[in-house]
C-alpha cells in the first residue's frame, strides 16, 4: 500500500516541525514508553546522547538498564543484542558511523540474519541496528559511506531508510515493532533539516515505497538523503519544462515495486540514484527488476546515477563524487534522448 498524499492528515492539529534527529529521538522515546522490553545500546549513547544526539536525554529518562553505553566493540554490540533478543528483549543498537559496521558484519550476516531460519521459526530476532550513513558532512574516511548493498544481499535482514522527519519518527517505531532484524539507515546529512512530524497520523507500512512528487516524463528513484537531491532536480527540470516523477524507496529490502513499476509504465523512462558505488548495488538491482517487469513500457534503458566505483574520496572532493541534482539531470537528459 502506498500513500502519495501526505497533506491529508495535517488537519488533525498534531503536527510539529522537527529536525530529523529530534523526530528519531521522539520515535525512540515512544518505543521505550510503549514496550518495557525495548533497550537502546551502543557507543556514547548514554550521557552524551550519541555523537549525533539521536538518543539525547533518553538515558536520563529511562535509566541505565534501558539505555546503556557498551564497550567499544561493534561485533560485541550486535552479538550481545542477539543474546538479549533470545532472552525476550528488543534491542536497538546504534552503530556510530556507517564505516564502523564492518567489525559487526559477521554477527549480522552469519548469526542475526540466519538465526530465525536456523531455529525454523521457533525463535524471532527483533533487533534493530541503526546506522547513520552517507556523505555531505565533510568527514574523514569511514564516516561517510553507504554500505546498504552488503546487507541487502543477505537473506533474513530487512533494510529501511527514511528521508523525512515524519518517516523517521514512524519508521523507527515500526522497525522496533518488527519481529525480524531491521537495519535502519539514517541519512546523517539530513539530521538537522526540519520537516513536519504528524504525531497523530497512523503509520504507513514500513516496507512501502512512495511517490513524493508526481510527473509524467521521467521517473527518478532514490532513498534517504538522495530523495532531497531528486526533488531539487525535479524542481530544476520543471523550470525547463520537463516533468519528473520522484519515488522515495523508503525500504531497501524488500523493495516495494508496485509504485515503481506503475511509474515506469507511465513515464517509460527511469533513473535510479544513490550515494553508493553503482557496481553490484541496490540501484543495479532496481534497474534489472524494472527491465524485467516493465520492459514493453520502456522508451530508454534504466539509467543509474551513483557514486563512482572508488573508495570514498577525501572530503573536499565529496561533492564531485556524490551525485547532485545536475548529475541526475544529465541522466534524465540521456534518458529523454532515446
Amino acid at each position, binding site marked *: 500500500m502506498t500513500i502519495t498524499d501526505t497533506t491529508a492528515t495535517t488537519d488533525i492539529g498534531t503536527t510539529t516541525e522537527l529536525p530529523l534527529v529530534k523526530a528519531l529521538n521522539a520515535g525512540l522515546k515512544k518505543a521505550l514508553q510503549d514496550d518495557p522490553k525495548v533497550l537502546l545500546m551502543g557507543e556514547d549513547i548514554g550521557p552524551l546522547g550519541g555523537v549525533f544526539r539521536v538518543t539525547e536525554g533518553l538515558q536520563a529518562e529511562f535509566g541505565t538498564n534501558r539505555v546503556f553505553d*557498551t564497550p567499544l*566493540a561493534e561485533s*560485541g554490540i550486535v*552479538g550481545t543484542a542477539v*543474546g538479549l533478543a533470545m532472552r525476550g528483549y528488543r534491542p536497538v543498537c546504534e552503530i556510530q558511523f556507517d564505516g564502523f559496521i564492518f567489525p559487526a558484519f559477521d554477527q549480522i550476516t552469519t*548469526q542475526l540474519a540466519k538465526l*530465525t*531460519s536456523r531455529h*525454523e521459526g521457533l525463535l524471532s530476532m527483533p533487533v534493530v541496528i541503526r546506522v547513520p550513513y552517507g556523505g555531505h558532512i565533510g568527514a574523514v574516511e569511514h564516516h561517510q559511506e553507504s554500505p546498504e548493498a552488503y546487507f541487502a544481499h543477505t537473506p533474513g535482514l530487512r533494510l529501511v531508510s527514511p528521508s523525512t522527519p515524519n518517516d523517521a519518527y514512524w519508521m523507527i517505531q515500526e522497525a522496533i515493532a518488527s519481529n525480524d532484524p531491521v537495519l535502519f539507515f539514517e541519512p546523517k546529512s539530513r539530521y538537522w533539516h526540519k520537516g513536519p512530524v504528524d504525531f497523530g497520523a497512523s503509520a504507513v507500512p514500513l516496507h512501502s515505497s512512495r511517490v513524493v512528487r508526481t510527473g509524467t516524463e521521467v521517473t527518478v528513484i532514490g532513498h534517504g538523503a538522495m530523495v532531497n537531491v531528486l526533488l531539487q532536480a525535479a524542481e530544476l527540470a520543471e523550470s525547463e519544462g520537463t516533468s519528473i516523477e520522484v519515488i522515495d524507496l523508503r525500504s531497501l529490502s*524488500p523493495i516495494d515495486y508496485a509504485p515503481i513499476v506503475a511509474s515506469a509504465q507511465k513515464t517509460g523512462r527511469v533513473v535510479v540514484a544513490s550515494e553508493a558505488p553503482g557496481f553490484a548495488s541496490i540501484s543495479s538491482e532496481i534497474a534489472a527488476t524494472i527491465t524485467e517487469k516493465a520492459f514493453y513500457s520502456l522508451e530508454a534503458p534504466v539509467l543509474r546515477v551513483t557514486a563512482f566505483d572508488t573508495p570514498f574520496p577525501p572530503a573536499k572532493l565529496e561533492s564531485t563524487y556524490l551525485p547532485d541534482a545536475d548529475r541526475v539531470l544529465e541522466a534524465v537528459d540521456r534518458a529523454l534522448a532515446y
Partner: protein
Amino acid sequence: MADETLTNDASMVQLLSPDGVLQTGGVAAEYLPYIEALSDDDLGQFHRDMVVTRRFDLEATNLQRQGQLALWPPSHGQEAAQVGSARATRRQDHIFPSYREHSVAMIRGLDVFEIVKIMRGTTNGGWNPADHGNFHLYTLVLGSQALHATGYAMGVTLDGATGTGDVDRDEAVIVYFGDGSTSQGDVSEAFVFAASFQAPEVFFLQNNQWAISVPVSVQSRIPLFQRSIGFGIPGIQIDGNDVLASYAVTRKNLDDARSGGGPRLIEAFTYRIGAHTTSDDPTKYRESGVVADWVLKDPITRFEKFLRSRGADDAFFARIDTEADDFAADLRHRTVDLPIPDSDKIFDNVYSEPHPVMAEQKQWLADYEASFGGEA
C-alpha cells in the same frame, strides 16, 4: 611435547588421578564436599552419560563413513569435561554450545538425533531451546556463541533473575568453546562485555589442544585459563579427563556466578583423541605416541576404576554397555529413515513475518516443479 607442558599448569584441579584414585590434598580439598554430596546413583549416571556418548559418537562416525551423514565432529576423549560440567548445571541454567557438546545436549534433555539431522543435512538446527533444557542451537562460526551467551546473561541480570541468593532459582549461563576459538575476536569481546556487565556466566573452554591441525601453542603462549584474567575474569584450569573435577569446579563456579560473583573461565585441559571431524586426517600432523599417552588418561577408563573401587561390579558395567548399544542401534534406524525435507523449507522461516520475495520465489518453485507433471 613442549606444547603440553606449556598448558598443563601446576594449579590444575584434579580429583581423580589417571588410575582412578580420589585426590584429597592440595587444590582438590576445596572441591571434595561437592563429590561427597553425590550418591552412588549420581556417580553411576556420570558413567552412563560418558559411555552412551562415546557409543553414540562411534555410531555417528560409522554412519558418516557409510555415506549416511555429511560430517561428524567426534567428542571422543572429551566426555568427562562435558558430562561433569553439564551435570553441574541447574535446571534453570542456559547452555550455549559450540558443535561438539553431544553429551551436554543429551544431559539437558535434547534428543541427540536432532544433532544427527544437522549432520545429515535435513536441518540447520530446528529446536526450541526452551523446550529442550535451555540447550541452545549448535553454532558453527567459532566463538560467535560466546557473545550470544553473554548477551543472554546480561538479559538474565536485567530480569532480576539472578543474584538473589536462591541457587535453585537464580539463573546462570554456561558457554562452551574450544582452544581455537579463544583466538577469535568474539571471544575476547565476550570477555569484555561479560566483565563490564558482570554477567552471571561461566566460560567453559575445552582445550583439546588441536584446532583441526594446528596445536594450541599457535593460539596461545600462556596457559589458556590465564587468558581471561587480564579481562578481569578469574580463570581456573581443571583436568578435563576427570569427570569429578569437571563437575565440582563447574558446580562451584556456576553457583558463584549466579550468586552475583560475575563471570568465570574454566579451562578443561583435555585431548581430542579422534579427528576434528570425519573430513580430517590427524596422522598428517601429530605423533601417534602422544595420542597413545592420552589414551592412557582416558576419562571413562579412569572413572570405571574409581567406581569399581567403590563396589560397582561387572554386571553394572555390562548393563550400561548394553544400553549404549541399544541407543546406537536405535539411532542408526532413525537416521537412515529420515526423509528429505519438503522444498518449502527453503523459504519458510527465513523471516518471522510475511515477506513478498519469499512468497514469490516459493510460488515460482512450486509452479516450476508442478510443470514437470509430478516427475520433478
